């Protein structure tokens, strides 16, 4: 799939994961690459971009027996943007699906 296109969708996926709670970078990378075929490293540039856009904040949390982990958390702006983008994506995906199904129907 087109990398640029995928990146936009991945941003939405990252926001979606974070609506369910704060996570550290690896957890986000892991749960995304389990479900979507992407290189493990792709998530970190996305997290960084979302942070610089003000959709995420980070904080450090001490873990027993290890260096402190950097947790990512949605900001109020992030929640707002997610709700809007999610609705947009869902209606877009629905229309694309309809279009593609019509296409398959025509060929038969």
């Amino acid at each position, binding site marked *: 799939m087109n990398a640029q296109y995928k990146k936009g969708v991945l941003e939405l996926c990252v926001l979606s994961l974070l609506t369910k709670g704060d996570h550290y970078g690896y957890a986000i990378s*892991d749960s995304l690459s389990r479900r979507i075929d992407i290189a493990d490293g792709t998530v970190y*540039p996305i997290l960084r971009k979302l942070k610089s856009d003000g959709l995420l904040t980070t904080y450090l949390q001490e873990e027993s027996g290890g260096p402190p982990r950097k947790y990512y958390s949605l900001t109020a702006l992030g929640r707002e943007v997610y709700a809007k983008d999610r609705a947009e994506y869902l209606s877009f995906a629905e229309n694309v699906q309809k279009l593609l199904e019509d296409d398959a129907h025509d060929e038969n």
Partner: protein
Amino acid sequence: MTKTEYLDRLAAILKKNQIPDAEDILAEYEQHFAFKLADGYSEEEAAARLGAPELLAVQFEKRETHTGNAALTRLGLVFADFSFGLALVLLAAFGIVLIALSLACAAAAICLITGLNIAGLIPSMPYGCAVVMGLALLGLAVLTAVGCVYYFAFIRQLIRSFGRFRHNALASVSGKAALPPLPVRALLSVRANRRLRAVALIALAVFAICFVLGYIAAALSAGQLSFWHAWGWFQA
């Protein structure tokens, strides 16, 4: 590729591409390796799954090219500060008027209720009417006090919101991250809001009821609607 090789290559490319906060990025990848190794992957496997460092490095955004001229932005902000300062003086002046109104109402109410007549400022009227009118003024005093609280909360939020705007304007020319803008509307806690509203409603009711009752009582005891004529309030 081993972990060290991978991170070194990534570090070199990030530096070449002038990506800000490279150490921060590298720390994330180092942590990623730590997790992968703990899950039983080899360094080579973990590196292969991460993707080529060259491909990752280009996905990090470069330091934003400074849009706009920093000196011009600062100059513009000086004018913005000046206008905002002036507006703030006007807004604060009105706030002081509101406070004065509230205090004056409270003082007049106390004089009426306790029967104090300092320097003969309070016109003569039957004590019963004075008490009811005093209660009405007390209601008005509380009402304007609540107004003051809202008003100054609004001014405070205005100042914070302007500060955020200033910060973001400077951030946009120095390449720092912008913070989300703040709403201009005053943000009181739900509880404070509810209490203030209840107090304001009670004060309004007290003012309205006592004012009407006071007027009726005065009109009845003076025997005419314009009771101030009967009691000779405005005669020199």
